[in-house]
């Protein structure tokens, strides 16, 4: 299993140069069974990362460019009257896939956003009274431009909470930039990537995440962190966020090849898990980690 994980990381990092940490976090998020939000300015490789992950993991992949005139039916699908059978025929939308890349999610109207987010939570969609299950596993990797960019509808807190993690990619370092410019990575090479994993092994990995041991001492720490956000910051973490934090820490420990979680795992994933939920200050996660003692 450990080999599979390492292979996934290695393969992805060949395309996404110099972003090992972000790649690892993305994989953590997927293994923990959550959806991922990538927030960054255009052109930083958000789409490439999503695309690469899908290919490496051997999963079906659909991409939807969110625009302000995108309608819920454009994502979910629509029932069309078939003249031959005199019946309504459901035409599945792009949401019926393993990995859905919702590109620039904050450019769509709130109505469309909610349709997607609802499906993310329920893992099913209901059209004209009939319910359609989504495929397993189902990940949404949404990208969004920073809020101050023109023509965006900010996601409300309740919907941000549905994303397990929010990461930013940031500019590459000098070495990776040079390699990129030499055409050694990036989207141009994405086509050459071979899948190193399949749906079965991925589901197995997800099950393994839940088996990573979380000791009482660590639960104490988690609770102290959560409590700290509730008493010392404007908005506290929800129980869902607390569960998410635990799962991410477990997934991170699994990727590191350990069968138990240590405070380092929590500290590694915490900024990505809590920052978008507490939102106001940029270094809120850092402050939390510095103020809460490890029991």
């Amino acid at each position, binding site marked *: 299993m450990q080999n599979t994980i390492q292979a996934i990381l290695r393969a992805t990092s060949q395309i996404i140069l110099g972003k090992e940490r972000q790649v690892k976090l993305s994989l953590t998020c997927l293994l923990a069974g959550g959806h991922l939000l990538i927030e960054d300015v255009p052109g930083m490789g958000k789409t490439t990362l999503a695309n690469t992950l899908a290919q490496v993991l051997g999963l079906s992949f659909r991409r939807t460019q969110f625009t302000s005139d995108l309608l819920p039916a454009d994502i979910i699908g629509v029932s069309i009257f078939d003249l031959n059978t005199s019946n309504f025929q459901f035409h599945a939308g792009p949401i019926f896939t393993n990995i859905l890349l919702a590109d620039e999610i904050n450019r769509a109207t709130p109505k469309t956003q909610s349709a997607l987010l609802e499906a993310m939570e329920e893992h099913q969609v209901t059209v004209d009274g009939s319910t359609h299950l989504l495929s397993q596993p189902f990940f949404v990797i949404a990208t969004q431009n920073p809020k101050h960019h023109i023509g965006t509808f900010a996601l409300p807190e309740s919907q941000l909470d549905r994303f397990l993690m929010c990461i930013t990619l940031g500019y590459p370092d000098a070495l990776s930039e040079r390699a990129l410019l030499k055409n050694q990575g990036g989207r141009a090479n994405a086509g050459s990537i071979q899948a190193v994993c399949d749906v079965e092994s991925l589901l197995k990995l997800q099950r393994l995440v839940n088996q990573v041991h979380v*000791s009482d001492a660590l639960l104490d720490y988690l609770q102290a962190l959560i409590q700290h956000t509730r008493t010392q910051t404007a908005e506290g973490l929800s129980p869902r966020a607390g569960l998410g934090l635990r799962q991410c820490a477990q997934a991170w420990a699994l990727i590191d090849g350990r*069968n138990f979680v240590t405070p380092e795992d929590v500290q590694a994933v915490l900024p990505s898990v809590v920052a978008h939920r507490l939102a106001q200050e940029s270094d809120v996660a850092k402050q939390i*980690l510095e103020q809460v003692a*490890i029991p």
Partner: protein
Amino acid sequence: MNQLLNFQLLKWLLVSLAAVLATHTPNLPVWVIIASIGFGTWRFLMDKYRWPFPKIWLLLPITLLICVGIVFTFKGFFGRDASLSLLMVMCSLKLLETKNIRDYMLVIVMAYFLVGNLFLFSQTITTFGLSIPPLLLLTATLIHISYKNADKPKPIIFYLKLAGQLLLQAVPVMLILFVLFPRIPGPLWGLPQDANSGMSGLGDSLQFGNISNLTKNSAIAFRVQFKGAAPEQSQLYWRGPVLWHQEDRSWTMSSNKIGLQTESLKVFGKRIQYTMTLEPHNRLWMLMLDMPTLIPHDANLTHDYSMIAEKPIRTRLRYDATSFSSYQLGVNLGERERLLNLQINEGENPRTVQLAKSWQGLSAPDKINTALQRFRQLPFVYTLKPPILGNNPVDDFLFNTKRGFCEHYATSFVYLMRAAGVPARIITGYQGGEYNPNGSYYIVRQSDAHAWAEVWLANKGWLRIDPTAAVSPERIENGINDSLDETDELPLMARADYPWLKKAYLNWDSVNNSWNQWILGYDDKKQLDFLKKLSGKNMSLQEMLMWMIGIIALILGLTAYFLIRKQKAKLNPAQRLYAQYLKLLKRAGLTPRNGETTSDFATRASKNLPNQKTQILDIAQRYNVITYSQSPNPELLQDLAQCIKQLNIPKQS
């Protein structure tokens, strides 16, 4: 210090000082109170509007001015009142230069001392109760100081609650100090003279108006608890000074007591045993029930059977005594005594003297009866507001005004008897008392003060005659409140109306009485008795001190032990080993930051101690596995201990 917290702390300090000032208001001159409030307000405004601290050229004249004020008000610096005023006003002046924590502490400690000073003025329960709120506030302020670095201000209730807890936790130590701290007979240091001003009680002379003034005073003179049944109300004559000598309008004790022989005393009937608790009155009298036989060992009986103490009674005094209600006193009267008891000034009160002369033919008992008969039959009125008497007061009273109080009746009766040739004298003291069913004891107030007469008859000795009883029998049967009409001003507590108020008052007095007996009356003798009961033997001073120090040390030791154990119990074996490791690294000046994980700290530490790198990283790794993994190998713990033992960290110089 955080500006906001600083202001918060200042507000706490000002409120506590205000509470101290409030409890002391009756003991301070008005200008001291105003000045103290002024300095406090100044300090408050200073912080609010960011005024600068006043310079020394301003503070120095103010200080001098205050000193002059104290000297001017109290005629000096010494004495309780002057010192208190000086301390109070200087404490508030100090506010104008409290900048750092040290200054705050100084003011708080001074304020604690000021609270303690309350007990120099009074030691009642009320005073004790009044001292609690300032103590609570001061302790809360003290706590506030230790929380000055907190992230944000805590709610007021937090500080008050903690202060209350601390005060309660101090109670056991307080009790032990109370019980075991060696008591020294008498006060520890002499109270200054002004401490005893304002005590009231019977004087050593009697003038018209003395007792009726005292009657308006509801202060308690003494409390009595009888062993067995109490005598009837009409028999409760509490004997005080015996007055022999008449001069103008006043009666005094015999001017020359030397050589006067002690009167003989025979007693009959039932023995009455009782315990007196006498309030301080700054004189020598110790009241006893007529007629005392057994007296406390540190008191003396005079030749005419009034009991006096060795020094003025300035603290509450408790003593056991025995009396008999039937007695024969001084059957044999010496010639000198007889003359002294017949003395009246020549040429005064001619009408009275004339009246007495007209009884020449009668026997002595008949003379007495005639005189009493006169009081009964003529329209004499018993009142607290007698008219002013003229140059011959006895004449004026007996023949004109006929309105008077016990002293009028007693003096004029004795005068009449002496003029008629019957030896007579005035006894002052108290009559009656109020029974308190809660605690079953009698309360005798200053308003129960009374004067009556004793006349000497051959073969019978001195007989008690109370002329007031002839005029107003209710005074003797029922107490003073029944014998006066509504217009007479009597203290509220001596009146019979408002029964519920009376009941509440009696309850409160019984609490007070217990407080007096058990808290204030806990002196060297009671301490020895109590400890004897506890330990079965007499305890020496050294033993008491040893026990006291021993028990307090035990309490503190146990508290410390449990506190430490509570902290240790939280640590499992791995954590204890880890604590050792942290201690070792501390030598090299390395301590984990808050929120720094074991591995991160180990990485940082190994950079600082490159030659210990493997051990440090091993320790961190093992500790992590033990703490966080599922069912770790028990051998790992020994492994961890081994690693820590191998750690070799030189002490940083």
